């Protein structure tokens, strides 16, 4: 019984982490049709920023740090988008080259600046004591992370469904040409959405830091997960990213616990099945 509850909670917290990672990716792909292969590197950059900032200023609050890192990464993302990506609107292969190239640059820069060791992000003091759930303990921070993911989902929902900016984004996702035709500044929208996506990744990196730690290779470990979530959940759908994150969280956690021999394969088989039979993903509005 204990096994199921603990692994269930683990699945939720992993799902929350994955949502923070992949919501930005889903946004960017939905609007810009750009598979942002730099996304893992943005996430990792956030984790490194967070780890360094919190070690340098011991009393720094993790939420403030996440916000700060998010803004910093968003700025870097914005520059990248404005200077490089805008020129590649009609060059999808060029986009692949450039986003991968950028991820090489970021990951090598991280190695250069922070060396090869793994640097932890400290868990916030007031959340370090484990929570007692039905007679056993579970790390409090992980539960809070689920809350963060839900909070982020709600915030994004409001942004997309209740604001003008959100309406413009949705219009752009549904039909880019028409959106331009009715006067929506799609290019500026692209930059804003890219910044937003990168920023969420950066903030997510800080928030995931206490669980993951910053280490070289974090970008390569996280990017496939983001891709899987978005493919499974469906492109252009926030709900898809949300549901997909938790589904993957459950599959990964229970899969590795129950079938350790299939550890590497457990994530990819469901995705292959989904794409093969429902290419637009579970909630996708747009074909991949």
């Amino acid at each position, binding site marked *: 019984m204990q096994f199921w509850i603990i692994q269930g909670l683990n699945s939720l917290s*992993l799902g929350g982490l994955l949502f923070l990672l992949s919501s930005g990716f889903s946004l960017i792909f939905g609007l810009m049709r750009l598979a942002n292969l730099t996304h893992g590197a943005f996430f990792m950059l956030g984790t490194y920023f967070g780890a360094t900032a919190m070690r340098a200023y011991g009393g720094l609050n993790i939420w403030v740090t996440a916000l700060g890192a998010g803004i910093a990464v968003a700025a870097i993302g914005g520059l990248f988008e404005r200077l490089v990506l805008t020129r590649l609107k009609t060059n999808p292969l060029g986009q692949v080259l450039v986003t991968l190239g950028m991820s090489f640059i970021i990951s090598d820069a991280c190695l250069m600046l922070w060396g090869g*060791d793994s640097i*932890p992000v400290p868990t916030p003091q007031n959340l*370090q004591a484990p929570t007692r759930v039905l007679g056993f303990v579970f*790390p409090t921070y*992980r539960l809070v992370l689920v809350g963060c993911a839900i909070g982020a989902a709600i915030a994004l929902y409001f942004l997309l469904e209740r604001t003008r900016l959100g309406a413009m984004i949705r219009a752009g996702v549904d039909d880019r040409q028409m959106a331009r035709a009715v006067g929506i500044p799609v290019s500026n929208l692209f930059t804003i959405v890219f910044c937003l996506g990168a920023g969420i990744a950066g903030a997510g990196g800080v928030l995931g830091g206490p669980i*993951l730690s910053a280490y070289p290779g974090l970008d390569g470990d996280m990017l496939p997960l983001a891709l899987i979530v978005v493919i499974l959940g469906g492109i252009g759908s926030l709900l898809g990213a949300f549901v997909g994150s938790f589904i993957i969280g459950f599959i990964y956690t229970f899969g590795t616990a129950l079938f350790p021999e299939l550890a590497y394969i457990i994530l990819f088989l469901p995705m292959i099945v989904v794409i093969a039979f429902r290419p637009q993903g579970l909630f996708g509005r747009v074909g991949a």
Partner: protein
Amino acid sequence: MTISRRQFVSSVAGAGIASVAAPNLVFAQNSGPIRIGLLAAKTGPLASGGIDMELALTMFLKERDNTLAGRKVELIVADTAGVPATARTKAQELIEKNNVHCMIGPLAAFEALAIADYLTEKEIPTLGVAAAEDMTQRHPSPWFVRLTSTSAQCTYPFAEYCAKELKYKKIVTIADDFAYGHEMCAGFQRAFEDNGGKIVQKIFTPLATPDYGSYVAQVKNADAIFLGTAGSNGFRFLRQFIEYGLKDKMTVIGGMTALDESVLRNMGDEALGILTTSWYSAEIDNPLNKAFAPAFRKQFKYDPGYYAGSTYLAGEVLEAALKTTNANAEDKKALMTAIRGNNVDTIRGVVKFDEFGNVIGDVYIRKVTRSDGRLVNAVIKTYPDVSQFWTYDKTAFLKNPVYSRDYPPAKNLEQ
């Protein structure tokens, strides 16, 4: 952009042609420097170890004014990126392009296995760091020595210590799911069970595991959990282990790379009291180490650990061998014989090599304590002259298959 496209293209083409057509320089014998090649993974997931390897070796050479046994030495470092094909290309580069006399490294087992036949063919004395058991057991090469330890060598005395002195009865092992982890846990299991203990669970985590949460939740009840992890995975696992409240229920112990000095410097009080076993500790009390460790710390601001220790050690062994051959590095057979034949005083104590080229040296049980305000691996017990075969009969040992995930079979696993 201030350079034109044409200029860029022509300069790249020129550079390319120039480097390919560069004549093969023939180095003069004996009057030139001794060229040592270092294969280190300076980028990629193993980067932390590779960087330390380079730092310690350059420090060693600098201390001696780049002169060993009276002859100048030139060090050429090659980045293997932790990829076997690249390791092979870099080995070729060092041997064919740079004409090195001998090599130090590589770090990872698969890197060593990728180049083993090439080194043997080219007859290059190699002082290896990688822990792969079979390289000095069933597939030894006369041109390869290993100065550090096989994956399991340090676990044997530690397993005995756990069973006999700490009186542990049941232990869970967790390690990364690759040969190094398999071999280390197999060795620990064998010695622990031979001394009356039981390994009740063996967990192997896949290589790219960002989150250890689901593994922590699988850990069964036991007296202790043995971390056979490498790099910073042990630390990341330990953090989750503590957060799930398990540190109060089980003691944490580890192998030679679980809580290496390079990882320890990023840890806090949660590490205090953890016992690990290794062939090195920055706290070893002999004159050579008492000179090396503080010097390293002064220059690089952290204690030397497994990787830094390994290349400094390689330098010491090489220097002793060169003194024996009178600085002759061209006669490779003589150099190799000298390397294998010497008993050398080093930072880890006295080392010598068995007939397979593996080191016989002291193994240290260490405990994490705080000293001078920083965390260190204090030595609490020394097992002298441990060989890769421990107390087992060599011939019988070699007749068995190499340690793996399922060998020796774990008979005491609880469901």
